[in-house]
């Protein structure tokens, strides 16, 4: 994209805000977000990423995007993964190794069942969502 003016930035913000919100709405594509700060990577997040990609490949699932994010703060259960699937509660999984990644694809994505013993909670509320900006 070329350099923006103030108006263009505001327009872009509205548009991308919509895009981000869409992931909550039914029927839209799902997202798997892997915590890939140094801490996550040190705990094996790259293998976790590989685990998700190969499991998705194997099952020929294409409507799920796999992206990365920074450290969520749950260092004691790294690698951490957020799974956002339509019609399912959004869940944070901790201690996700290759095997657990496969299990998440099979159970959470495939069968709509949460994977037991790996669910954790975000350590704090999202201030941005709550206040909705200024």
């Amino acid at each position, binding site marked *: *994209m*070329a*350099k*923006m*003016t*103030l108006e263009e*930035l*505001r327009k*872009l*913000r509205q548009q*991308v*805000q919509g*895009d*981000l919100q869409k992931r909550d709405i039914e029927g839209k594509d799902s997202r798997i*977000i892997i*915590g890939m*700060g*140094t*801490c996550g*990577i040190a705990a094996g997040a790259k293998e976790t990423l590989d685990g998700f990609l190969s499991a998705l490949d194997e099952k020929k699932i294409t409507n799920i995007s796999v*992206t*990365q*994010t*920074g*450290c*969520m*703060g*749950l*260092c*004691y*259960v790294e690698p*951490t993964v*957020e799974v956002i699937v339509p*019609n*399912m*509660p959004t869940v944070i999984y*901790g*201690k996700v190794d290759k095997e657990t990644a496969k299990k998440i694809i099979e159970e959470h994505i495939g*069968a*709509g*069942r*949460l994977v*037991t*013993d*790996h*669910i*954790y*909670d*975000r*350590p*704090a*509320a*999202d*201030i*941005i*969502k*709550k*206040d909705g*900006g*200024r």
Partner: protein
Amino acid sequence: MAFRNYILVCGGTACESIKSDQIYKNLIKACEDHGIADEVQIVKTGCFGFCEQGPIVKVLPEDAFYVKVEPKDAEEIIAEHVIKGRQVERLLYDKSSSTRHARVEDIQFYQKQFRIVLRNCGFINPESIDEYIAREGYQGLERALFEMTSEDIIEELKNSGLRGRGGAGFPTWMKWNFTRQAKEDIKYVVCNADEGDPGAYMDRSTLEGDPHSVIEAMTICGKTIGAHKGYIYIRAEYPLAIDRLEIAMQQAREYGLLGKDILGSGFDFDIEIRLGAGAFVCGEETALLQSIEGKRGMPQPRPPFPAVKGLWGKPTVINNVETWANIPVIITRGATWFSKIGTSDSKGTKVFALTGKIRNSGLVEVPMGTTLRDIIFDIGGGIAGGKKFKAVQTGGPSGGVLTEEYLDTPIDFGSLVKAGSMMGSGGMIVMDEDDCIVDVAKFYLDFSVDESCGKCAPCRIGGKSLHRILEKITKGNGVIEDIATMEAIGEAMKKGSLCALGQTTPNPILSSLEHFKDEYLAHIEDKKCPSGTCKDLISYWILEDKCTGCTICARKCPVDAISGARKEIHVIDQAACTQCGVCYEMCRFDAIEIR
């Protein structure tokens, strides 16, 4: 939805010990009894970090948050909530006694953390500028460029009460204002990302998770003080943070949010990264500026302060990563919103890297005024392995240890100093009964002595002398006069050192002497290390009444210091023993004792 409801039962160690397993089983049974077993999934989870209210049961998708649940409540949760759709009021979390609230959106009422600095960490893809923009990103810059004058911005910062997060807590608006008022054509904006305290990784995580927040903040500062150039000084050992900063800066330039004529406002600002080689002293601002200039990183006398005469002799605002990450939020939301969080003299939040003997180690952001007890026992879940809390070290090598009696100290700049430690940049290392306080002090001294730049004598010689005395004490050669000598050297270093590194090097010793003098005396007078850490002061003995003659210790001993035939009592040859502790770890009958 595959299931009508998902019921999450906390299976953390704390909740597990108070019957969450029975609750789990009862919930499954209740579902079966009501014939809805295939409509509801009951799941065991990890620790929710809210242990004092446990066991916790969360029902999705309604997000009902039930606390202090008993096994007998399972039937009611299924019959009322799941089947009839009526939440079980009496079990919902009670944020105050008057109003009942359980929606997860109101999370700050039951979670002790509040995330301003880390607002985007773990939410956005740090390599996507669009995701940052979608979450209020560059909105502060918009305001700064088009709606506010420099005076407005300074006023907003002043009213926000923001103080520097690098350790000293200097009011940020004052720094900015000094530089703004300086009559020079060229000024600079610098980000101090030279995070060096052992066990601290707040800044690294912020840069890795949300690089745009720092870029936006520095640009806002440039506009405010009249600077067109910024530097981020970051250590080369943070490669991922550097990569993500580079990507973020490139994206910002493409969007016209960095570089010439930002958003068509006519204002120019750009940022360069400068890599540090990892010297601790380069986190000190004057040494850092020397290093950016390509010189050897050594502190310079202040005044003049960098705000007046900084990089290449020009007025320079230098703030730490965490301080920067607060700026866009303050400008976007306003000072009134920000100043509601925290205490009267310390506004906003503080990020801590909670490590050591803690169950849930992690990156923690809490409102100023939160107590150490809240952080260690609620958020951190207490001491790992059921051991006893001994002390917490805050402020890294410059800070001090705080004991149990300070657990209810609210964390802000003033209270921590009063308690004999300091805020520092945010490392928080928890120690349990197995840690030797003299050994911990020696660890920090090791670090500080290693990192002393050698320019001034109090730091160079004083640190070394202190270290030598500690070494002597841990080897059992200490004399009682050593304590007074250490105190005298420490006081001299505080007064005479050129920069904060030397001035604070004695802190771990002085504060541990204050709280744990007995432990020092045990080392010096009794030649004993009460926690069994200092190898020269301990010996291992086999208890005759407990030894079964299993031979495992003899087989594992690396120096063959243990003798004894099968089914006979074993003996350690004290002359050959190296106090490695392997036998102590291996023995399954508690037959080995430390004396």
